[in-house]
């Protein structure tokens, strides 16, 4: 099936216009990771969390974790936004057009990824204002690649949920039983080796674990796994999630 670039562009454009017009939503989405960064950072910085590696300060350890968290939430919500379109009827308008379904999925992913990345970059800039340092352009580009893969992976996941759920009622369940466990299992806020071995096993099926580890490798030079390994795992996760997301989306009925 050939990707309809005009359709991808216009779907992306719609997403951009919507986010620019919903400034309060962007501010709100930035507030949570910033609070986490500020209060966890201040609260634990002096305690000396064990196992950070490389003589890191806790707040520096935390920055890639909170970046991953911000990407997890904004991307999953971007995938789930199909539910809003279903609620407001706009999904029907999209689905009745002669655009192939793969292009519609690609358009959504393009829009959602851009919004998530912009938020991530804003967060990174704020972190730099309060003293976080990125080693150099190469490190930044590598981190950006990880951000991209995290965003794409979780938009795919959001699309799967949106296609299965039909309405917004399951939203709380997904929030509490999928997204928060994924966040805590990923080692965003503490080193994974501080978790019991059994729980660590669960961490290894959480894509965010490898995403955040990769971000730490890129930005801090400290990671549990080799960065290349993280990169390959994230690439695999993103491909699988996008294919599954497209597959579920294609099969869901839009009315």
């Amino acid at each position, binding site marked *: 099936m050939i990707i309809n670039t005009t359709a991808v562009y216009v779907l992306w454009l719609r997403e951009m*216009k919507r986010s620019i017009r919903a400034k309060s939503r962007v501010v709100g989405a930035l507030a949570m990771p910033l609070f986490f960064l500020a209060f966890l950072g201040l609260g634990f910085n002096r305690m000396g969390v064990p196992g950070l590696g490389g003589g890191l300060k806790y707040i520096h350890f935390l920055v890639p974790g909170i970046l991953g968290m911000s990407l997890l939430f904004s991307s999953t919500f971007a995938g789930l936004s199909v539910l809003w379109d279903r609620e407001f009827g706009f999904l029907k308008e999209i689905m009745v057009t*002669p655009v192939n379904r793969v292009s519609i999925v690609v358009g959504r992913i393009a829009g959602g990824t851009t919004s998530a990345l912009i938020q991530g970059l804003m967060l990174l800039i704020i972190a730099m204002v309060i003293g976080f340092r990125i080693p150099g352009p190469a490190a930044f580009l590598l981190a950006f690649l990880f951000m991209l893969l995290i965003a794409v992976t979780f938009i795919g996941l959001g699309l799967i949920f949106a296609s299965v759920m*039909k309405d*917004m009622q399951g939203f709380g369940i997904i929030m509490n039983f999928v997204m928060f466990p994924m966040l805590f299992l990923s080692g965003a806020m503490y080193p994974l080796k501080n978790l019991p071995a059994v729980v660590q096993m669960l961490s290894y099926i959480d894509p965010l674990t490898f995403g955040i580890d990769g971000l730490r490798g890129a930005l801090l030079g400290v990671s549990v796994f080799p960065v290349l390994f993280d990169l390959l795992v994230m690439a695999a996760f993103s491909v699988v999630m996008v294919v599954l997301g497209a597959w579920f989306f294609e099969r869901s009925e*839009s*009315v």
Partner: protein
Amino acid sequence: MDAIQVENLTKKFDGFTAVDDLSFSVPSGELFGLLGPNGAGKTTTINMLATLLKPTSGRARVAGFDIARNRDDVRRSIGIVFQDPALDGKLTGRENLEFHAMMYGLDRATRRTRIAEVLELVELADKAKILVEKYSGGMKRRLEIARGLIHRPRVMFLDEPTLGLDAQTRRHIWDYIRKLNKETGVSIVLTTHYMEEADYLCGRVAIMDAGRFAALDEPARLKDVLGGDVVSLELDAASESLSDQVRKLAWVKRVKLHGAELSLTLERGDRRIPELIALAQKNKTTVVSVNLHKPSLEDVFLHFTGKTIREQDQDQNERGRPSRGPHGGRR
């Protein structure tokens, strides 16, 4: 060529049959109406024809294309106005139209002329730069009609185009629909549960009830089934002799004496009233009041389904409409 051909179309939701073995065709250029209460299966029928729902069984062709096998060709040939608004409120009117035009692959120059054209048609050119969430219900409806026309569809589906609009806006939209059908020659299928709407607009009307067609014909001929107008004469006292005399008149089809009220079914009732009053006077009976009732599609609906459309709506509400979840929407 027919705009729509439907053969044995059926849709079941978890054992509930929403559309039951429907067969009909709509010739090109016709304004065809589906009339029925909520839950009769009108929207489900339209959603299947618009490729949004897969039929459980049966076949249909829209603009010559099979709805199951040539979905993209069908999508390219149709325009649709959904029952519930399907606009992006965070975009302006023009942006909503632009989005649609690009999804249909129109180039920049064509987009500009067509959008100007349809905005003119629905008289929204001066409101095009306002966010749609600030539009009134009538403006949203008009914008959706405009949007459905941008890609010049051969078949247009209008699902309850005037639901929830005030009388003036409704008239306005009726006139658009007529003008549209006449000027562009687009075939139009509309669903409604307003009798006047079907009567005023449609060349043919299908009366739909519980997933099936109870009747299908021109509004005038559907009304003919009822045998004509009903003239009710309220008399000062019951008069058997008058009723017997009236019964002998060739142009009176049915006579009913109910207490002091004499009801007659006849054609062209308005022209016969003087004669009837004269006859009553000869009989020394005084006519207290006269009531002339021209048959409406409401009566036709009652005749074919045994219920008024309002009673049907209530029944549906009590039984609970079949829907998936609280936002499943009406079908």
